[in-house]
């Protein structure tokens, strides 16, 4: 499985005529469809949720899909939100703020950003990992001109929130297998 296409799930679980993710009712149905697919995916894989064909996303639906997926499964696996628009990000950010959660979102040009209530240093460290590829705490600390121990704490927060991945000797961006 490369990614989970929300439009396909929307059309399968709610109605073939819909292109927007709106209402809690729809969100619950779509989340159920996502969870069915997740059961067949190894927990070590990044779950890529594809918003690329989604039109409008309202807050209620964002809460049912992104909010509840992160609350219920975010401790066990990493999620990457792909194909999001600026309007999607606004709705998702509100939801993440409410639940004190964070997520990596990739826009339709392939640019990644962090969504959610995170500090500046966490965002800067994330940007450094994204730009430099697999990298260690010492390199990130040098780049950000921060003490190494403080940088390690920030990177650990990214890791704990499953916003980056760990590999031998360093950290790397979330990538789908």
């Amino acid at each position, binding site marked *: 499985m490369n990614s989970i296409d929300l439009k396909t799930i929307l059309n399968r679980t709610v109605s073939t005529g819909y292109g927007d993710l709106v209402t809690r009712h729809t969100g619950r149905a779509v989340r159920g469809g996502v969870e069915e697919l997740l059961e067949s995916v190894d927990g070590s894989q990044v779950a890529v949720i594809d918003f690329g064909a989604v039109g409008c996303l309202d807050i209620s639906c964002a809460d049912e899909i992104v909010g509840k997926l992160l609350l219920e499964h975010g401790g066990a696996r990493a999620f990457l939100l792909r194909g999001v628009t600026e309007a999607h990000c606004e709705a998702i950010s509100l939801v993440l703020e409410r*639940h004190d959660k964070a997520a990596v979102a990739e826009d339709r040009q392939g640019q990644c950003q962090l969504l959610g209530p995170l500090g500046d240093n966490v965002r800067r460290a994330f940007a450094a990992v994204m730009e430099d590829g697999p990298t260690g705490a010492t390199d990130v600390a040098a780049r950000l001109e921060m003490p190494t121990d403080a940088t390690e704490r920030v990177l650990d927060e990214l890791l704990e929130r499953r916003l980056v991945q760990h590999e031998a000797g360093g950290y790397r961006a979330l990538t789908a297998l």
Partner: protein
Amino acid sequence: MTRVVEVPTQFDDRSFDQFAKAFGEPDEERLLFDAHAVQWGAPYGLLGLLVAGQNTVERGAQRPRLTIPTDKDVLHYWARTGFFEFAGEWFEIHGRTPRASQSRSSEVLLEITPVRGSDDVHGVVGVIQDRAAAILSGELGLEATATMGFGMALSEACQNIVEHAGTSGWVAVQTYHWRRRLGRRVVVITVADAGMGFRRSLQATQGGRYGDRWGDATALEAALIQGASRFRDPGRGQGLGGIRRYVNRWDGKLSIRSGTARIAIVPSWDDDIPLADGLAPFPGSQMLQIIPAQQAE
């Protein structure tokens, strides 16, 4: 006995309290809604009229009468909004109603549309995104992203009915050129229902926190400012906050009336007050969102 409920000649959000006062508390008399002298009726007023009719019928009173405007332009505008498609269910209409024009009016982005469930919200959002994109970005000068945000604000407003009213409601979206009031074009979302209102909806989860202060005004504050919900799910109660943020971003106005109170997010171009309490009671809730054209910097 018949009691006459006079419909204000300029029937919009600013004269609505006058209408609510005339509607008054339920009694045994048959109601006659007299709109013959109306010179202008915005969807806020028209949806309020439908709510008054629905409320009267649903509490078992005799179906009220409605005398329609004598001004032909006003009458045709009411027809173009789709008002008469629904008015017949709640009123005995006196006067000849025009047939709704087949061609849609450019000022009516969304005709008065019933909201009963999730499918209706999907329909409304789908229609409005097709119709509103050109107006929002072209005529109102909003960024392209505003169109999607507009769909979100509309959807959350409609869901307020689905999730909280306990009955159906209506939505309408119009665009106007407010030459005197603002000197700019605006797009206006109006949503109304004859349901239980904010105070009753939030009573079980929020009422105890407020004690003697609990009422329509505190219920509106709890919902709009604090994001309170009648559901215990911590993800609930974000919809109105999202609308508030959207309206703030585009220098718009948000107003919600429920029971005897009205709360508003008031932009600099409007002279409304943030919170009005002790108004004439009116059933359900009425929400108004106004997004003005952006001024060139």
